[in-house]
Each structure stands twice: as C-alpha cells, then as structure tokens.
C-alpha cells in the first residue's frame, strides 16, 4: 500500500520533469526567418534613369559587353547551373532560402549584426585614460570600430547609398545589354526562386555583394572573413537557383567594386576620422561653455571618459550643406539656472522614482544601447519589416534604405552639432540623486539622439508608406519618450530633438520626390 503510493509519487515527479523538458525545448521562431522570397510586384525596369546619390551618371563606370547567349561558352555556364542543381545539398538549399528574401534586406541585417557586435565602448587603460580604436590598426585593443550611434548611422548610410547607386548602374546595364536570364535562354532549366522578368546581366545580387563587401571591409575591417563568406554565399545562390550564369555574377562583382571605390574615397575625406577630437578640444568644449556661465557637461563614467565623437557634427552630409546644418540647429536649451530648467529637472526626478512597469518596458524596448544595433539600426529593422510586405524590387529596396539611412546620418550630424554646440549636462549630473533605468550615454544631453533619429526615420518612412504613417509616428514618439522615462533626458531634449529630426527628414523626402522613382 505504502509502496504503491511511493511509486505513484515517483512516477508523477518523473512525468512532471519530462513534460517540462518537452515544453522547454520549443524552438523560438524569429521574425526574419519568416520573410517571403523576393517577388516584386513592380520590377522598376526604368530604374536605370533614377538619380544616383554620388555617381555622376549610371554609366560612370563601364561594364563589358556580355558574350552572346548563343555561344558554347554560355552553354557551359548553363551546364554549371545544372551540375550544381543535380547535386544540390541541404546547406545550399538553406543558402537559397536565406538570400532569396532579398540582397538589400540580408546585407542590411548583416550590417546590423556587425554594428551590434562592435558597439562596445573601449575599456580603460590602467592609468584611467581610454584607448581609441584605430582603423589603421583594427585588431589592436580596442578593436576598430566602436560602432556607437553616429558611427553606425554613417555606416548604414554609406552602405545603403552605395548599394542604391550600384543598383541604378545595374539596372542601366541590364536594359542596355538586355541579356536574357538563363531560364529564358534554356526553357528546360529549373529555377528555384520566383522568375524575374529583368535581363540578367549584370546580376543585381552580385553588384550588391561587390559594392557591399568593399564598403564593409572599410567599416568593419576585422570582419572581412565573415563578410566574404556571406558574399560568396550570395553569388552561389544566384547560380544554383538558376537566376544567373557565372558571367552575370562576375560582371556584377566587378561593377559593384568600382562603384564602392567612389564611396570609399568620399568616406575617407568626410571628416568622420577626426570626429573623436583630442584632449585640447575636450577641454575647450568645457571652458567655452563655462565661460557662458552655464554648467558644462561632464562625463558620468568612472574613469572619466572623453565625450563621444565631439566633431561628428562636422561630418560631410550627403544632402545637407554645412550651412544647412547650422540653419537647422535647435534654439538654445533652457539655461541650467532658469525656472524652466528646474521644472524639467523635477519632472525627470519624478520619472526616476516612478516604478512604472509600462515605462520600464518602453525604456528597455527602445534603449538600443551598448551591444545593440543602435537606434538607427532599430529603425532599419522596423523599415525592413515594413518593406517586406510592400514587395519592392531590389532597386527600390536600395533606394528607400538609402534615403532612410542618409536622413539618419544627417540626424546624427545635426544632433551631434547641437550637442557639442550647447554642451548641456545630463539630469543625473545636475541632480546626482536621479537614478536611471538605462545607461547614461557619454555625451551632452541637448538634443536627444533617439528623438532626432526617430523623427528623421519617421518622416522618411511615412513618405514611403503613408498608410503606416500614424503607426510610425506613435513609435517615434514612444522612442523619444523612453529617454524621459529612463531619466536620462529632459523634455526639451526630446521635443527639440523630434523637431530637428523632422527638419532633417525633409531633405531626404524632398530628394525622394525628385529622384525619378515616384
């Protein structure tokens, strides 16, 4: 009798443990695994006439005439596809599944990964100073880059802009040479992805891989092996799937590389390399603000960390002139001695003491701090998920990403300009009893970067997808508010940041209306 009870208990215990084990091993579904294959509703076959960002003309860089599809050499290229398909592996099928969602989207995701991985502030030296990552010696400690928000905004912008120009060139040559796709030449050739009606020379995916790899080598030099592996996969995907022959791909890589060189040349002279500043500048920022009898910003970190990229406001924008940047500069923040300031500080103190779960959720959701893809990366993720349902062509994907990211780079430039022009302290500097629920960024408060990035992204995305404008606006406002709830920004920082972002966004939106794509 007693033994029976004991056995039952044992069995029950075992059953609970087994049931729990089973319930824990449920796989997690990730959103980007659910994206459908790219199958555009409109292939934008006139995109070769759209206005590029940096290229003087779509054919600024030449591309060789392809060999005729009637030649035996072409047939051998078709045979290469067939031989791959005859022995296709599960791994190759996975590569096709991954890349066929779209090259611009996947490269954007890869970039977000690289940003998140490298978004870590350098660890201090034993003497309390901080080493500065160096592009010339990227593997040293700390590794280059520290992909903080301005660095990331610029990286996303360069890659997206270069991809867009490269797509315009690709579309131009597609139309010019009008080489049919392999499955058109050989109607018996199986195609493993949705068939495109576009000419196939050069391969748009290869152009993308070519241009992106070169830029990423510059921006994330310690990741070249990983980047190259991804590019090789993308090239292979086009051939195995039957979308391109090898000469389509080779031509694409070569065209992409040439275009990249133009962007790399610009990047090396845009002022970003000098944005870190030096001790003399850091001191000067403090003394010149103190001279106005305002309280200068001070790092809240131990040991004291130099301010993040004080000269980023001088970086050369794609759409705004230096005069535009100054003209967009927000009005001065409330004086730290003013009644208005005291009121705003008290508001933040109250947020720091509320234990609202809702606020904490918003703070965490939008924090995008150390180890993340940054606020611009967050908006890239939001944009990507919105674009997927729009069934864009690759060239439109590239164009919209370019305009979005250039707007956010401009947000970084103008916001950093304001931050270092006013050099305003954070709430916890003015009142050390203010505790925060997210990390305090190591740069001045006015205006809020999150607010500027979000409003700029909101302006551009609402223009692309007016049906989602309201929803996007809600997100942008929430991102801005998260900095109040987290007790790291004053209301003025957020409100004026939103305003600045909106202003900056109009440059990209004006461009969108005149670039020939609408």
């Amino acid at each position, binding site marked *: 009798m007693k033994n029976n009870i004991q056995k039952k208990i044992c069995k029950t215990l075992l059953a609970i443990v087994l049931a729990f084990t089973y319930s824990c091993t449920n796989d997690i579904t990730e959103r980007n*695994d659910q994206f459908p294959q790219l199958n555009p509703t409109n292939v934008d076959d006139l995109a070769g006439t759209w206005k590029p960002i940096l290229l003087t003309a779509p054919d600024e860089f030449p591309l060789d005439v392809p060999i005729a599809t009637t030649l035996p050499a072409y047939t051998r290229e078709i045979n290469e596809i067939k031989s791959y398909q005859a022995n296709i592996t599960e791994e190759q099928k996975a590569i096709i599944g991954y890349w066929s969602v779209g090259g611009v989207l996947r490269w954007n995701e890869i970039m977000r990964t690289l940003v998140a991985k490298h978004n870590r502030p350098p660890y201090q030296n034993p003497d309390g100073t901080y080493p500065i990552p160096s592009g010339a010696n990227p593997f040293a400690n700390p590794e280059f880059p520290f992909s903080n928000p301005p660095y990331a905004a610029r990286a996303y912008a360069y890659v997206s802009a270069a991809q867009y120009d490269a797509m315009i060139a690709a579309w131009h040559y597609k139309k010019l040479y009008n080489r049919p796709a392999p499955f058109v030449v050989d109607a018996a050739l199986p195609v493993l992805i949705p068939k495109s009606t576009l000419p196939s020379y050069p391969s748009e995916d290869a152009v993308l891989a070519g241009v992106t790899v070169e830029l990423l080598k510059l921006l994330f030099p310690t990741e070249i092996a990983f980047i190259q592996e991804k590019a090789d996969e993308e090239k292979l995907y086009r051939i195995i799937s039957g979308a391109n022959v090898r000469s389509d791909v080779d031509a694409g890589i070569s065209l992409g590389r040439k275009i990249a060189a133009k962007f790399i040349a610009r990047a090396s002279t845009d002022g970003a390399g000098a944005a870190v500043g030096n001790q003399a500048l850091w001191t000067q920022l403090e003394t010149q603000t103190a001279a106005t009898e305002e309280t200068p910003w001070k790092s809240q*970190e131990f040991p004291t960390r130099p301010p993040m990229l004080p000269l980023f406001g001088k970086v050369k924008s794609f759409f705004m002139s230096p005069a535009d940047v100054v003209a967009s500069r927000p009005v001065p923040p409330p004086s730290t001695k003013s009644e208005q300031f005291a009121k705003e500080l008290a508001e933040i103190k109250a947020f720091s003491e509320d234990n609202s779960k809702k606020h904490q959720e918003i703070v965490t*959701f939008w924090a995008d701090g150390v180890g993340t893809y940054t606020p611009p990366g967050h908006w890239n993720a939001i944009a990507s998920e919105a674009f997927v349902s729009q069934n864009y062509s690759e060239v439109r994907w590239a164009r919209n990403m370019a305009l979005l990211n250039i707007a956010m780079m401009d947000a970084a430039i103008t916001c950093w300009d304001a931050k270092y022009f006013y050099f305003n302290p954070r709430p916890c500097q003015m009142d050390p009893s203010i505790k925060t629920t997210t990390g305090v960024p190591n740069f001045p408060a006015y205006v809020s970067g999150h607010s500027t990035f979000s409003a700029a992204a909101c302006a551009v995305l609402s223009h692309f997808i007016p049906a989602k404008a309201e929803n996007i606006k809600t997100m942008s406002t929430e991102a801005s508010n998260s900095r109040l709830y987290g007790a790291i920004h004053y209301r003025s920082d957020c409100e004026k940041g939103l305003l600045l972002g909106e202003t900056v966004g109009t440059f990209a939106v004006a461009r969108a209306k005149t670039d020939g794509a609408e």
Partner: protein
Amino acid sequence: MKKVILSCFLLGTFYSNAQTEIDAIMMSKNRFCVGSVYQYSSWDKYWEGTNKRENLNLGTVSTQSIGVMGNYGITDKLNVLFNIPYVKTNASAGTMKGQEGFQDLSLTLKYMPFEKKIKNATYSLYTIGSYSTPVSNYTVDYLPLSLGLGSKVASFRLMGDYQRGEFFTTLSGAYLFRSNVTIERNTYFTDEMHYTNEVDMPDVISINARIGYRSNRLIAEAIVDNWVTQSGGFDITQNNMPFPSNTMNALRLGTNIKYTLKKVPKLAFIGGYNYVVDGRNVGQSNTFYGGAFYVINFNKNSETK
C-alpha cells in the same frame, strides 16, 4: 519506521530559489516547519567571460533578500517545501537604479525512498523534484540589477547521505531545466542576432557536497557547490552588459550552522556564509544569511519521536 531526524532544513541558499531542499533532513509526518531568512550578498568584482574585473560604474552590487519558507511532512519520507523571497538590488556607484520586488516561488517535493542502518552508519537516498516560477513581472533584461532570470525552472536532484555517529557527508547532483524567457526587446544580440523577444535559456547542472557534524541540537557543515551552465550560453564580451542567457558558472565554498534551542526545541536559528572562489559571467559574491524557524506539530499525539 526508521528514526527520522526532527529538524528544520538547513539552508544553503546559494541561489535564492530552488536551493532549500538540498540537505539530507526530513520533516516527520504532519509537522510543519516555517521560518524566515534574511540574506545579504554582494560583489565588487565579476568575471566578464573568464576575465575577472571590477566596474567603477557599478561599485559594489548587493542583493538583499528576505524569504518566507516552509517544509511540511506529508509522510516521514515525503516532504513538500516552499520558498518565496522578496529581493532588493543596489549598485553603490554609477547611475543605474536598483530594483525590488518578489522574485520566484519555488515548490519542492522531497522524497526519501531509502534509508538503511548498517552497523553504526546510516545510509539514505533522496529524490528531489522542484519547480520555480517568477511571482512578479520583474524586468529580466536588467542584469546585474534584475531580481532574477525570469525563467521557470524544473529541477531534479538525486542526493545521497551517509551519517556515522554525529558526522555526516551529503552528496547531490541536480539537472535544472530552464524555460525560455521573454524580454522587453524584440531583438537582441548574443553571439548572433535574434529577431524575437524570446530567449533560450541554457540548462544547468548543480553539484553540491556537504560534510560536518549533525546532532538533534546542532548542525555545522562545510559546503562546496558547483553551478555549471550547460551548452547554449555565451560569454559577456568586454565592456558589454550581461544577458540572461550568459553562461553563468560559480564554484562556491561555504559553511552553515543550525542551532535548536534546548528550552524551546521547536525553535531553531540558522546562519551561514559562502563565497565564490571561481566563476564565469557572475559576480564574486560574498553571502551572509541568518534566520529562524519554528515547528508546528499537527499530530494529535504531539510527542516528539
């Protein structure tokens, strides 16, 4: 009927949840032991991966908890236990705000299928099944100041005890199955990017050994405990924030004492100390605790065996 030691459990609260069951002591039938324990744990150095460092922006990170726990003897060989701690965290430097609230409720069934006296020694075997779940919606993705890891944990422990005279040795090992946790971000980076708000938590193996003196009045023991995260976790990278699914390992040494009052044998006091000698992605914490327990006898015949 074997003689069952009438005693409250001796705590080894290495982690404030699911650790109350790992001593070789059973409540006898219809007796309910209830008590409260206060614990203070703090560290100013931690392992970032395998690299031990300090962080001047955190200073000393402390966790205080006060828990209510109980142990009821369903039979002499089967006990049910519970534990619910209220936790408060704090960082002495920097700006990050500490948290407080109820953490995880744990429920445990402890069963002794075997006890045998051979010559002067008593050998016993225990199986312990435990389940713990968060009882408040505390923020998980806020390490190192979050109240807990937010995971529902089912653990199964096998434990053997050897007692000769008043000296004993206990050895146990447990496997902890940990459920996915939901965080407030919908994208996060571990060693790769994840576009989801769910986090896969690696399981844990915990090994615990105790040796010491045990009589009806006094228990004093030394403890070694090894907590090892299984595959699926990852290291904190330099100057990055910790994350719930980090590989968190800790080797601890500690000591516990329990004293039952002579005049009031239903009342016992406990206390203890332990510290982390080696770890990975955890703080090198020093932990002190103390508490009191009271036994309520629901038997009609209330005489103690």
